[in-house]
């Protein structure tokens, strides 16, 4: 009897650690990541990663379909796969205005593991490498002069085509827009004071330069100078009292986790 129990110990230990054994430094375990996915993500994103989990039909903003490798929150140029750190950023911060919450309470290992698993839904991750992230120069600072210049930038780049003359998301092309999945999508109302992909000035800057993959929002990286982009950021911040108007305030706000 004792002998048999002794035999079971390595079997038990094997079962226990099998899931974690594939973890190498820096990258996650796909095998454990599948369990993390099933525990936390499956109900919305679906067993096949197609964004059609059991809860998806009740959601106005649909969960991401992972099969195409397109992600809105990226530091990489339009068309590129995201970096792992981009995906982790979304796990840490969630997506405001959607059902995607922050997963900060999870341990970093679980986050790494689930990122490795999510990447298996798109064959692109096996054949392509993400491009280098865009460079975001320091915010020169919010000022009335910058806002005034940004007003001209908003006109020059025809942002009003979709976002409307007052930034309320009511431009001539605002209607009938569709995302990659054929779902209706509207341009963001820039006066609402919160950006889905983050509310710091760098978050707004990044959206211009990377575009929002899978949506009509294109990249302006090839046409807009960084000086113009910062002025435009400040103009957009001027549209809403809800935007943190300078980097320091935004950073302090984030530290305490105030994202409501």
């Amino acid at each position, binding site marked *: 009897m004792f002998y048999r129990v002794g035999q079971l110990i390595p079997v038990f230990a094997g079962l226990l650690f099998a899931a974690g054994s594939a973890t190498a430094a820096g990258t996650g375990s796909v095998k454990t990541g599948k369990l993390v996915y099933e525990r936390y993500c499956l109900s919305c994103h679906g067993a096949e990663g197609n964004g059609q989990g059991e809860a998806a039909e009740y959601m106005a903003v649909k969960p991401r379909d992972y099969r*195409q490798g397109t992600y809105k929150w990226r530091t990489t140029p339009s068309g590129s796969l995201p970096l792992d750190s981009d995906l982790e950023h979304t796990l840490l911060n969630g997506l405001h205005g959607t059902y995607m919450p922050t997963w900060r309470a999870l341990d970093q290992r679980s986050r790494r593991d689930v990122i490795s698993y999510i990447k298996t839904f798109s064959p692109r991750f096996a054949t392509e490498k993400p491009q280098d992230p865009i460079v975001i120069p320091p915010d020169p600072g919010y000022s009335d002069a910058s806002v005034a210049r940004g007003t001209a930038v908003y006109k020059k780049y*025809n942002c009003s085509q979709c976002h409307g003359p007052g930034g309320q998301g009511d431009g001539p092309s605002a209607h009938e827009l*569709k995302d990659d999945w054929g779902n209706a999508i509207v341009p963001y109302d820039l006066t609402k004071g919160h950006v889905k992909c983050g509310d710091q000035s760098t978050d707004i800057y990044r959206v211009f330069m990377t*575009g929002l993959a*899978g949506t*009509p*929002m294109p990249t302006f990286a090839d*046409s807009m100078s960084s000086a113009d982009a910062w002025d435009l950021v400040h103009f957009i911040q001027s549209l809403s009292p809800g935007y943190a108007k300078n980097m320091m305030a935004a950073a302090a706000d984030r530290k305490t986790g105030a994202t409501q």
Partner: protein
Amino acid sequence: MLNGIGAAASRHSVFARACVAVVGVGASLVTHQALASYEVMAVTNGGTIDGSVTLTGAAPGQAAIKVSKNQDYCGQTIPDPAYTVDSSGGLANVIVYLKDITKGKAAPAEPLALVNTKCMFSPRVQGAMVSQQVKISSDDTVLHNTHPQNAETNATIFNVALPFKGFSVTKPLPTMPMMIKVKCDAHEWMHAWIMELDHPYYATTSADGHFTIKDVPPGTYTLAVWHEVAGEKSAPVVVAAGQTVKPKITLAAK
């Protein structure tokens, strides 16, 4: 009690196997695509395919595209270019290409051109080689965005803004062969197609339905045509060394 657990567990494992099977199919597709590689070689005695595509039957009446925004710039209507047919039935904007060709001439060195002009894309359709560069430009004062997607999955390839007249940008196409549908989200009627192939043996018919594919290594191939509305068709073609073969292809109007 124990039976209950057993039954539930076996149902569960069937489900698990189904999941694994789905993943397996996905993986094999990738492998297949990765294996299909094209080999460049010198073609000294190649043949030429010099043919034409005609539309049989009358092209269906096409209502002009009603412009819904920026009418002051784009105009009230734009002629629908889906069927561009000349007086003798020659059909433009058809992509003609070879299938099953694994080696031959080098890839084109020049980037493709895709111009946003008068609130339309030009050209309407064209072929491309995988990873080829495409130079996108705008002649218009209104904002356009050029947003190529995988035509099958709708997956965004990239999405670049052309905010003002005279702006141009050069971007690479995907590394995998696919049919690409290009849209401009700001002007929902604007579309273009790029057929991306893993070899350079393709051509687009001109206004009179004529096309030419040069430097084809001698052999028997499948010649295929694609039109955005009339659809696809293919037929065998035999190319002899130094000779020109002149296939006449017809597509039925749909």
